[in-house]
């Protein structure tokens, strides 16, 4: 018997736990060339801003061991064109749309949420808080618990459907941030965005990324994000969406055992844009082999002893 693979985040029901990660699938429609995107649990848009953004100067991407660095600088067509041009296309393709938003000012997050709340095709909102906060001298929104709380609180007021907060991993105790998001009414948290990294071309002696540092993604970050998913799962009871280095169905299962309800596939799409369909087959077969009725029974099923974990209390 086929196991039930549905997943719920807030009121939103996904047909399976596989989502695309923001910024790694264009606006979702490009993937249609390679597979039927309606098979996905959800398509998450590139981070949208109020006005279109041209993004950073090149070079924007560089390969490193088992990963890549990027510094795209939120290049995107802006929320209006997204609604006018992309949503109809995604509706046509039968994709369930989650809009990811980013801003440099708190007010802009709220405006974006209001605009997107008005469009019923936008079934969920994911807040990207890994952006420099202009008021606070460029410190990322997501690295200060108070700022995070205030944004989530304000956005929660204007966006009635599923609200997911995407956490930055570049903090000492990510559990505190997850807890704050939960307290302010988020329906879920995505763990995690990219890690601050850097690479240098030793011939030119210049950084390989124009902005010097960039965000690390890919298999290299999987163990790091795995630990954070586990830690967050001990801090909150809202669903966790895992994002970091998912390339195989085994990676999906591993994240679910660690505590994730759903996952986002990012960098893997660059090599194999049709990878989600293969992953679904893999996890269904695993769940069937384990005779699981519901795939979601995997979530948080790690067999471990609390006493073995150093300073478990801190998580």
């Amino acid at each position, binding site marked *: 018997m086929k196991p039930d693979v549905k997943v719920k985040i807030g009121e939103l029901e996904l047909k399976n736990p596989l989502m695309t990660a923001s*910024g*790694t*699938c*264009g606006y979702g429609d*490009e*993937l249609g*060339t*390679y597979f039927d995107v309606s098979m996905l649990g959800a398509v998450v848009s*590139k981070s949208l801003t109020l006005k279109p953004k*041209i*993004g950073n*100067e*090149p*070079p*924007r*991407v*560089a*390969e490193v*061991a*088992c*990963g*890549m660095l*990027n510094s*795209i600088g939120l*290049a*995107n067509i802006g929320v209006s064109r997204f609604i006018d041009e992309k949503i109809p296309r995604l509706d046509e393709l039968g994709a369930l749309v989650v809009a990811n938003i980013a801003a440099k000012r708190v007010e802009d997050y709220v405006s974006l949420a209001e605009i997107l709340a008005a469009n019923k095709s936008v079934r969920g909102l994911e807040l990207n808080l890994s952006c420099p906060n202009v008021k606070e001298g460029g410190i990322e929104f997501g690295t200060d618990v108070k700022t995070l709380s205030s944004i989530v609180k304000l956005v929660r007021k204007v966006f009635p459907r599923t609200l997911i907060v995407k956490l930055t991993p570049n903090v000492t105790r990510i559990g505190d941030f997850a807890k704050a998001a939960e307290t302010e009414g988020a329906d879920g948290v995505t763990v995690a965005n990219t890690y601050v990294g850097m690479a240098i071309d030793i011939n*030119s002696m*210049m950084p390989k990324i124009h902005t010097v540092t960039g965000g690390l993604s*890919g*298999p290299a970050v999987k163990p790091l994000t795995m630990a954070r998913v586990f830690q967050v799962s001990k801090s909150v009871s809202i669903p966790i969406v895992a994002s970091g280095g998912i*390339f195989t169905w085994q990676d999906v299962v591993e994240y679910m055992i660690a505590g994730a309800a759903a996952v986002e596939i990012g*960098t893997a*799409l*660059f*090599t*194999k*844009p*049709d990878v989600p369909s293969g992953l679904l087959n893999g996890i269904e077969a695993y769940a069937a082999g384990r005779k699981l009725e519901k795939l979601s029974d995997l979530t948080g099923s790690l067999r471990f002893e609390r006493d073995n974990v150093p300073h478990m209390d801190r998580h």
Partner: protein
Amino acid sequence: MAGKSFLETAVTVNTRKVAEQTFISTFRSPRISALVEAGQFVMASFPGTIDPLLPRAFSVCDVEDDTLSLLYVAVGRGTRKISELMPGAELILNGPLGNGFPERESGRKIWVAVGGSGAAILPILSRSAKRVGSEVRFFYGARTMSQLVPFKEATNIAHATDDGSAGFHGNVVGLLKQELRRDTPEMLFGCGPTPMLVSMQKEFGTKIPTYLSVETPMACGMGLCQGCPIKKSDSVDYYLACKDGPVFRSTEIEFEVKP
């Protein structure tokens, strides 16, 4: 506008060393071969490993029946690894990607300048020119003779080497300038290292309809990552090299040259 693309598990037919550090590998890849046009590219990745992780971009060098070939200079982890593929070994290809060179009509006079691994486009352009009956001349530059790939099928190739060991003594832009004193093409195509393209844009861009195939780092090659910006000449905005290019009209783009 780019057309339909496929993700295809291609099978290595063979690999030949054709010049210093330079190889041509042929792959059985029926779906991509059937569609690819001159100037389009594929993203190649290795099954079953994450080293290297990202796919590599290669212009398609030639197409024959259900096979296509790639010409590459084995400089890094990806290209060295391709050069070591045994016949029968698999390589994952995503393509055809991007927009190729503009349609060629019968009788059109086209000059094509290529340098280094940019020579990859020579065979496929030569073949399509023959098919549509346009008149093509190639100008092919390299540092030295041993780096020049001897193309047998293609005719009408003038060589330039920096050290004068074969053909014109100097770079390919110098050779073009010399030839332009005698004749002028209807279109000029360029494919090669960025400094060569920059120089072509500067020298000929406003005088002759010039099309350049640009190279930028690419993570996906299909418009997913926004990693491959190339400056628009007429506004503060970027094209994506992979989707809007890699071939651009020279007047459309600006090269951001590093100091």
